[in-house]
């Protein structure tokens, strides 16, 4: 039978003997996941500090002189790119994807462990090239995270000579790393599940990561194409994107290039990228809500279909990022329509999350707090998306702080809250120790209330017409209240930024002083909680692979002896099959 050959391949598993092969050049998916996670969080902290420096400038422009205008643009660019690509994408897919897929599917490892290891090291190389941008002549690019030409390679833009090339090379290397990891995730989900683990018995975390990976594999080539072509424009003088321009008194050497072509390519990647980050978050939050409300996920099958529908639709909405770039009005209508259609499966998911909580035995644990917090911020960010998806509303709001507030709520704050929830949820499995509960609650409340204090006022600023990407504003243009709000936002951002140190402290403190977690502290049903060892040892399952008899959501089944039945428990007395409604 095929599953024996693929999932239970003891003879093919490498057998790490030394410290180096166990923890550095490791092919074990769990170690690679932690390597991905630590690197992503480390580079994410750099982006966090950049955002705080920017906020100090905006909130107190005459008090702090930390950065010059050029530095501000470089900080904007690096903050955005790091957060979207090098933190969120890497953390959800490289981190959680690597850790959860084999464990939740009942496999011993990824199907191509060596390539999986290479994936991490190439990712690290991409991060190092990105960071090198800070130290090269002219510094990193300051073109904004969208890297629009002609600005990105024009004289006067910070980092227009070397910084942009450094960024584009780093992105190319990242895509290579992602492809190596992505091939692993897709193949492992399709071909290495243990016996009994049908596709429709997979936890929604795996579904989210699986579909997001497919999106990434198909969408990242668009970024690669644009990166290669822009690199050639910047280095050997091609004119793919660069038009003829009179810039700072000089005529450039390009002619005829199409900046709009870049925008199309960039957003053909850029919009699926939103869902590359969001779908794993959707999947993970579904599992957190179900586990901590002791209730099966409401509408499992609908949730799977919604993930697939969102994945497909995410490829036909990209031009809603370009309403103000100039396009045929019929195109605007088409993309506004598809944008509104994609709200349907998304709304289905939100309803199902809320209905999962309905009459559940809700345990307000720290992961659950973050999961519920996500529902709030995601609804909030989703609703403002409806404003921006409509051409006529988008045009006046475009390039204002309303847009900044919207995308930070929907794809910054919301996925990060899920990341936090997931860390609190799976840290006990990864380390064998519980994270400190009091510190966790403190972290949650400061973060959750703090992000509202940051982003709610930004909507107001946007409606006032305050443009984004400005180093400083004149009080002649905007009322004093704008400056006062900016100061308040900065104070909130500093508090929220500092609150993240609580999590970092908790991660380290609990590793040494935390309470022992035991194998299944949340009384979860999915397979990762059923490993013979915690943390799971190399090969995950001991001598025999698990066999799956049921879906991952058998909580509070009538007639069961406990309020959860693990997936690998066969039907019998005290463990009936549920016949409820999915």
């Amino acid at each position: 039978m095929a599953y024996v050959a693929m999932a239970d391949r003891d003879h093919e598993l490498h057998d790490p003997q030394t410290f180096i092969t166990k923890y550095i050049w490791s092919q074990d998916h769990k170690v690679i996941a932690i390597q991905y996670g630590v690197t992503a969080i480390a580079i994410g902290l750099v982006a966090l500090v950049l955002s705080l420096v920017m906020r100090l400038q905006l909130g107190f422009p005459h008090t702090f002189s930390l950065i010059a205008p050029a530095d501000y643009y470089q900080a904007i660019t690096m903050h955005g790119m790091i957060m979207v690509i090098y933190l969120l994408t890497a953390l959800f897919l490289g981190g959680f994807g690597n850790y959860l897929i084999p464990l939740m599917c009942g496999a011993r490892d990824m199907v191509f462990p060596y390539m999986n290891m290479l994936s991490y090291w190439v990712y690290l190389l991409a991060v190092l090239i990105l960071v090198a941008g800070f130290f090269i002549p002219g510094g990193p690019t300051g073109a904004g995270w969208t890297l629009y030409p002609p600005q990105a390679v024009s004289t006067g833009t910070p980092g227009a000579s070397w910084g942009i090339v450094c960024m584009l090379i780093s992105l190319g290397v990242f895509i290579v790393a992602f492809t190596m990891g992505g091939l692993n995730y897709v193949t492992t989900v399709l071909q290495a599940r243990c016996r009994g683990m049908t596709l429709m018995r997979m936890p929604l975390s795996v579904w989210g990561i699986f579909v997001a990976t497919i999106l990434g594999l198909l969408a990242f080539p668009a970024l690669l194409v644009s990166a290669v072509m822009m690199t050639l424009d910047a280095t050997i003088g091609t004119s793919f994107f660069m038009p003829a321009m009179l810039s700072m008194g000089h005529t450039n050497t390009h002619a005829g290039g199409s900046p709009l072509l870049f925008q199309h390519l960039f957003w053909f990647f850029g919009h699926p990228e939103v869902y590359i980050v969001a779908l794993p978050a959707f999947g993970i939050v579904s599992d957190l809500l179900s586990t901590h409300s002791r209730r099966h996920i409401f509408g499992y099958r609908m949730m799977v279909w919604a993930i697939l529908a969102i994945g497909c639709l995410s490829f036909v909405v990209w031009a809603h990022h370009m309403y103000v770039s100039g396009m045929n009005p019929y195109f605007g209508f088409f993309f506004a329509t598809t944008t509104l259609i994609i709200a349907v499966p998304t709304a289905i998911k939100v309803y199902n999350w809320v209905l999962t909580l309905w009459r559940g035995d809700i345990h307000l644990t720290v992961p659950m707090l973050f999961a519920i917090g996500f529902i709030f911020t995601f609804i909030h960010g989703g609703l403002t998306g409806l404003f921006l998806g409509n051409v006529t509303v988008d045009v006046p709001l475009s390039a204002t702080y309303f847009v900044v507030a919207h995308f930070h709520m929907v794809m910054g704050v919301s996925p990060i809250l899920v990341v936090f929830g997931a860390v609190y949820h799976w840290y006990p499995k990864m380390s064998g120790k519980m994270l400190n509960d009091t510190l966790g609650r403190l972290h949650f409340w400061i973060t959750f209330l703090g992000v509202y204090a940051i982003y709610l006022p930004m909507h107001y600023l946007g409606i006032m017409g305050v443009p984004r990407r400005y180093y400083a504003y004149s009080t002649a243009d905007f009322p004093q209240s704008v400056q006062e709000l900016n100061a308040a936002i900065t104070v909130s951002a500093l508090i929220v930024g500092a609150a993240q140190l609580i999590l970092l402290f908790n991660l380290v403190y609990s590793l040494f002083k935390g309470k022992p977690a035991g194998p299944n502290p949340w009384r979860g049903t999915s397979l990762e909680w059923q490993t013979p060892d915690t943390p799971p040892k190399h090969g995950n399952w001991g001598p025999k692979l698990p066999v799956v008899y049921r879906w991952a959501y058998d909580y509070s089944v009538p007639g069961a002896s406990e309020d959860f039945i693990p997936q690998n428990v066969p039907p019998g007395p005290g463990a009936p099959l549920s016949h409820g409604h999915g």
Partner: protein
Amino acid sequence: MTLGTAYTALGAGVLVWAFLVRSLRARPWQTKDAVGALHEGGETSLTPQRIGLFTFLAVISSLFGLFIAAYHMRMMDGIANGDWVHYKVPGILWFNTAVLMLGSATMQWAKGAAERGEFAPLRTRLIAGGALTGGFLLLQLLAWRELGADGFLSVRNPAIAFFYLLTAVHGLHLVGGLAVWGYTLRRLAAPTAPAVRVKDVRQVVGLCTLYWHYLMLVWLVLFGLMLST
């Protein structure tokens, strides 16, 4: 971006959808006979390596599809503003195409030998297939030279820039294929148990052959694009 690209993406999504639809109609919470419903292995009878290669080919398709979409859009702009200058495609490309097709056919021939476990002819055919592919790459460089000799070297003409870009990207993928080809030759010489060796080599040669055919197909599309525009 042309709407065609969007529809291609949508079509790909529908295909995946159709592939999965049977499994997705299951109602896992209602399973009456859990043991009888046990999943008996991978979703298909394909090996993981083959699934991995198919997935990689999808990535390559997306990459070249987007390059072609960019080519088309830039050409439309270039024709409108007059900077897209048509050029004569180097005649040597016809010969190069024949060499690549021959390389692909030789790989297919090698695959036949691998399936029968005939290692001696397999090695010869593999070497021939790889050599023809290496030859194709060198000939592509000659095509670059021929284009330069015709006075078309300037990359300021986007048509020429695309010629260099597309041939280079295609060539890089072939170089990647040649790396696996080298690995296969090494495996062929490795002293392992005959049964393991036959299975292993058969699989790798099969994957190489599929990759070769696919890249030949990609080249035919690119060549056709350059000839027709």
